[in-house]
């Protein structure tokens, strides 16, 4: 995959501020094929279930703490998808949590690539995308 490959993005965050910021940052990388944002994790799951695997990789930026369904609940359900679907996705937690137990729990899900701290810069996100092959 070349360095300027495009990705589909899904942002799951309960804060509309952080969703807006994430959108801006993604746009700054210029690597977006599409951006979908969800302030409720359940809606994101339904979207993934309905649209399935895309031609390009889909990067999910997932918040930890959200009301009703949090990031961990989301991962619990996401891991139930068939491997064929999951292989089209790369999940990153993007959170303000400094809690070590949150971080270890987050990275214990097989589909999670890593745990990123807010705020993330466009340059940092770009580097991460470059490593996704």
């Amino acid at each position, binding site marked *: 995959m070349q360095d300027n490959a495009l990705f589909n993005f899904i942002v799951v965050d309960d804060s509309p501020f*952080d969703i*807006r910021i994430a959108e*801006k940052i993604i746009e700054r990388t210029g690597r977006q094929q599409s951006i979908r944002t969800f302030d409720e994790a359940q809606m994101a799951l339904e979207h993934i279930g309905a649209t399935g695997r895309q031609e390009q990789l889909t990067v999910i930026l997932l918040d930890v703490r959200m009301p009703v369904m949090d990031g961990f609940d989301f991962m619990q359900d996401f891991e139930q998808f068939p491997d064929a679907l999951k292989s089209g996705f790369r999940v990153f937690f993007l959170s303000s949590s400094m809690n070590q137990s949150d971080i270890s729990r987050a990275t214990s899900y097989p589909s999670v690539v890593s745990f990123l701290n807010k705020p993330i810069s466009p340059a940092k996100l770009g580097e991460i995308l470059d490593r996704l092959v």
Partner: protein
Amino acid sequence: MEGKIKVLYLDDEQNNLLSFKAAFRRDYTVLTALRPDEAFRHLEEHRDITVVISDQRMPEKSGVEFFEELRVQYPMPVRMLCTGYTDVEAVIAAINRGHVFRYIQKPWSETDIRFAIEEGHKYFVATSLLEETNRELLKANTELDKFSHSVTHELRSPILSVMGAINIAQSTDNVAEIKEMLSLAGKAMQRLDNFIYNMHDYYTIQRGKLNTAVIDFDKLISDLTDIYTIAGKTNNVRFEISNEVMEEVNSDQTVLNIILSNLISNAFKYQSKTRVDRFVKLVIRTEEGKCIIEVSDNGIGINEAHLDNIFDMFFRATNEEFGSGFGLYNVKDALKKLNGEIKVSSARNEGSLFTVTIPNP
């Protein structure tokens, strides 16, 4: 009622049991057992046994062995060993292995036993209290942990939003984009301020002493009208207030304010986005010995599955608006302080009704 001290006595000689029972049954509830398994059955059935006395020399098991087992299964009752022989080894074993509270020499005198039982019971009460306190402390500690974890998150996330917004604003010359980021930062700070406000309420309720006085409802209502009528106009929500207070109400103004402002601001906040005729209604009335406050709206309502949790700290039932997860917790806490109660009935997309009852003796 305090009740009599419950004593269990284990001895393989029926006569000893009978004379023990005869001597102490008036002052204590006496249970007796000829064999260890019988003693365990009593312990299983009577969880309030505080003193266990056992003979040392028994055919199945020695008193020390019995106590060793007892200590594992029922650690709380105080253990006393009774033996007729000056059996030093047994006494040492009883202390080291059976952790006995006292050693009683046979033939026992009534005064000795009585004294030993009273002392043992006192010891039992003191240790139980200590255990209870420890348990409560442990619980408080766990809650504090959870609390500080959540507070850190709530304080930090708006700050990180602002930092993200600043990053973007700094790297653009587009004024519209900068303005958007500024407005975003402003809102995030508002959220932080709101959270800190709620924290302040929390400590006011937790630490504050009650300041009971006659509540000036006219003043209270005119204050609320000032605050919410404007908010209502911008959002097109009708604010109806009905003051049906017929007698003086004695309560704490600050605590009452916390309750009212949380319920009313929630009612304004969780309005339906599609409904045209939107309202928030406040009714305050008195009934004999009670002051009743009703706050109702025709907003988005609360999912039935969440109704039991809405008063929990940091619980949020919806994502439709910003909430600190603190508001209703504070309301419930405040009501605990006033010996009041709150009930809620709600239907999704139809609205909610919160009914607060405060005793007014």
